């Protein structure tokens, strides 16, 4: 026990000068180091003595980053969107800034809106069945199999270049992308 004149120390407080000197002399932690750190967590007088002996101890237990539920949910949506975007663009080897990551998804979503608002063909066009089969063949096998098992709400009438599945909170939206539109 040695706190360099500090009146608040107890007999259980470690000798921080001795411990710090031992740490400065060897890469291996000195005997009793882990126990001293446990003690440090609950002993305010020790904190000052410890930091005086080894200033790097100020960095122990830096405050946790405040990450709210909205930040976590935003991350989940970005990851989901990027995963969908990569289904179009293929794996990328570099970081994709978040503001750019949304562009493929936004473009695909805009296309879907245009499709729903425009060339709507209730009941399906002639030959649509073969077009649907061709579209499934063009998809990744696992996605094609999953989609083929789902009930068909509206018929595709022509094959498309890519199909992207976008997962939101409680729904999955399948975006059919025609890159010939260059959106």
């Amino acid at each position, binding site marked *: 026990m040695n706190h360099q004149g500090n009146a608040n120390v107890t007999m259980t407080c470690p000798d921080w000068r001795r411990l710090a000197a031992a740490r400065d002399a060897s890469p291996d932690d000195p005997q009793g180091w882990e126990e001293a750190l446990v003690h440090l967590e609950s002993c305010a007088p020790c904190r000052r003595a410890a930091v005086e002996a080894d200033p790097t101890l100020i960095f122990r237990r830096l*405050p946790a980053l405040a990450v709210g539920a909205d930040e976590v949910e935003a991350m989940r949506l970005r*990851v989901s969107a990027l995963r969908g975007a990569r289904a179009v663009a293929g794996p990328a080897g570099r970081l994709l800034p978040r503001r750019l990551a949304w562009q493929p998804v936004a473009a695909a979503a805009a296309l879907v809106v245009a499709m729903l608002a425009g060339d709507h063909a209730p009941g399906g066009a002639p030959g649509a069945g073969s077009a649907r089969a061709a579209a499934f063949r063009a998809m990744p096998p696992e996605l094609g199999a999953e989609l083929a098992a789902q009930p068909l709400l509206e018929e595709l009438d022509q094959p498309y270049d890519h199909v992207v599945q976008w997962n939101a909170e*409680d729904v999955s939206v399948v975006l059919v992308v025609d890159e010939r539109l260059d959106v």
Partner: protein
Amino acid sequence: MTVARLVYSQREERERWTAASDLELLEGLRADSERALDELVRRKTPALLQVASRILGDLEEARDVVQVAFLRAWENRARYDPRWSPNTWIYRIVTNLAIDHLRSRKSRERHQEPYRKQLRQVESARGFAELQQREVDAIFSELAGELSEKQRLAFLLREVEGLSSPEVAAVLDCRESTVRNHLFNARKVLQREIRRRYPEYAT
């Protein structure tokens, strides 16, 4: 021209993954479960953002790195070996990406700008014991620029985040003795710089 729309409830599967362990989540990833990835993102984002932001000294860049880390985890899910600690695997992805990002950063002046000026603006005559934790965080961001990549990672993971030495060795893909050497050298640099730049806090 029409489009097929598929809308179905996935609440049950999401609840299933919420109750899963980390290891079960990664096994779910290996089985191509996107819901397992969703839960992994929910569970690990706070810790990974913290580590990445302390490596990079910038929260915005940390967000970029963490989102790509989750994508890498998904793309490499088949390579995950259940014998590895889930935390070690995901920390390793994040730290590697953060280091790559540091290397590609063209200018680091913004992150090496002395924090002293800001400290003066906050309060000029405050003792070390009263130093606010957020200020210590900023001092770390400044001084960490003096460390090598490995030193910074070893110190951050072991001394700040509290990982064990074997865990740090696994994340950095090196031996424990190497981790101890990185820590030893990192401490010397940080002690020297604290005493030089902030002598009032290290008397």
